[in-house]
């Protein structure tokens, strides 16, 4: 998807882009969380493109809601709008990504949050929320979800001490010289 995204970027720069490409690019920018860039793309779009796909305006509203962290509005627009077939898969992926991001934020920003509030933030039913909560090993008590912070994933492999020692030796020898 990243390659496709870059290809569209190139098309836009080369000025050959159609309204359809603009729509797809806008959705991809939101998916990759390039929100400032998405706003700028909207500013660059000619009126004809904006009129060709009214969904572009909806995506702009999603972008603004994402910047303002208005989770309820994000999901409401994503669900209520009828999306063109060629961006529907991206919109579904975007919604899932927003949910994951929200869950991750909730895990380290809240000790307690009400079931209704979290369900609204994720735009899921309370039954579905219970599934999500139990799969994340969180608990629910008296209508309150108690999230547990998941340790931050590190993409870096565990370092061998010998490597650290070599790097330290290099630094000390540099400082001495």
């Amino acid at each position, binding site marked *: 998807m990243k390659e496709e995204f870059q290809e569209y*970027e190139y098309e*836009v*720069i*080369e*000025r050959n882009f159609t309204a359809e490409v603009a729509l797809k690019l806008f959705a991809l920018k939101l998916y990759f969380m390039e929100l*400032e*860039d998405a706003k*700028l793309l909207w*500013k*660059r779009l000619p009126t004809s493109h904006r009129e060709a796909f009214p969904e572009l305006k909806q995506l702009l509203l999603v972008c603004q809601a994402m910047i*303002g*962290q208005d989770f309820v509005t994000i999901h409401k627009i994503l669900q209520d709008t009828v999306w063109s077939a060629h961006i529907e898969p991206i919109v579904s992926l975007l919604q899932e990504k927003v949910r994951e991001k929200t869950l991750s*934020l909730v895990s*380290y*920003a*809240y*000790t*307690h*949050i*009400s079931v209704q*509030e979290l369900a609204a933030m994720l735009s899921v039913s309370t039954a579905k929320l219970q599934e999500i909560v139990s799969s994340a090993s969180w608990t629910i008590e008296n209508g*309150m979800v108690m999230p547990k912070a998941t340790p*931050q994933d*590190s993409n*870096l*492999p*565990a*370092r061998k001490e010998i490597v*650290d020692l070599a*790097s330290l030796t290099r*630094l000390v020898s*540099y400082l001495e010289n």
Partner: protein
Amino acid sequence: MASATEKFVISICEISVAPESQNAVCTLIARLYDSLVKSPTAHLDAALGALTHEEHSLGILAILSAKLHQLEVVDAGSGKRYYSVEVASLDKLLAQLDSFVRAGNMEHVRYAVDTYTEMIHRMAELLIHRKEAIRGISIVAKAVERIRTSETLLTPTHTDLCHLCLSAKSFQAAFPFLDIDITDLQKPSSQAAYDSKAFLLYYYYGGMIYAVFKKFKRASYFFEIAISTPASVISAIMVQAYKKYILVNLISNSGEPLVPKFTAPVLSRGLKTHAGAYQDLYHSYNSSVQSTLQATADKHRPIFERDDNYGLVKQCIKSLYIKNIKKLTKTFLTLSITDVANRVHLPTSAEAEKYLLKMIENGEIYAKINKKDDMVEFHDNPEKYNNPAMLAFIQQQEKICVAVNKKMSDMEREISVTPDYVSKVGSYSADDDIAKPSTSAGMTSISENL
């Protein structure tokens, strides 16, 4: 082919046969350039067809420069330059320029780097004038990439790239260049110094681009370079950079002083007159009282709007809420969300929760919200500095420090053998009581030549 262009092509082909003929070609171009500008476009296009990129890049450069020169019209009244060109001709010209910057022999072009710079500058001006800046971005990005001899070399073409990106509101192409710290300036082919306007504009535009993407610390660094460039007169670019410097520092709440330490003296003397409203805003912000800041913003609103800075001012107002919430973390361990809202003068507790959430996400505060009791608990930084990510970060910073140190040593060595420095040291050596000038003083004199 008409006689002037025909003569030009024949001469170029004849001279280029000899090895190391670039200086001779440059002299020929200087002699025949005016006649090229006066030649019909069709003849210039025909001449282009007779030259090859590998052997005759300087000739192609001269012809393309002449073609762009022909499109330039100078308004008799205002003296302003503008361009007149038909769509088909522009498409063809852009294709020729694109092909040249991609395939041209840059070893040869570096003999006429001023002509190359001027050609790209004209193209950028033309496209900005026609509101088609986006079409030039990839050409200019390629032009910078190919002409520079090292990644850290700044060329006047960098400035054109940033200008095009700002005009087109498309910035992705600029970041690979802006993210590299500059350590050298491109030497012009003539005896003139590096164009100070291009230098200042690069850092001004670069700061603006970073500000758009909310990378305020980097933006502040760029504006600071523009402000602290040694100068003997105040430049409008420096004044505008100073205004934005104040605003981005307030937004990032970096605690930078009102006037940076190395501000050119001539500029610091004139700041009260030229940027008084911004200094007022700075003092109001530091009072930490939301209503005072709002009142100052309202009072000077026409000035901020005239300068196109009102958007940044609005972000300053929001940033004061963040600064005041951060202050609370130093006093309280737990606080109700309603109290947070009241203390920082936010209208509702929901609004306060949004600010808290954003700040937790950005790592500006370490806190947990408890919606059961409507409280927020503030914590210390949980970083233990014992994980692989932190070690990787420290090693990366260490590499940067080593590279900077090496660069400084190289510069010092370079300056210590310059005739100016050697003669200065010689004049001091007669009197042992007087300290010898350090090479860092030499560096200052070099930067003064900008």
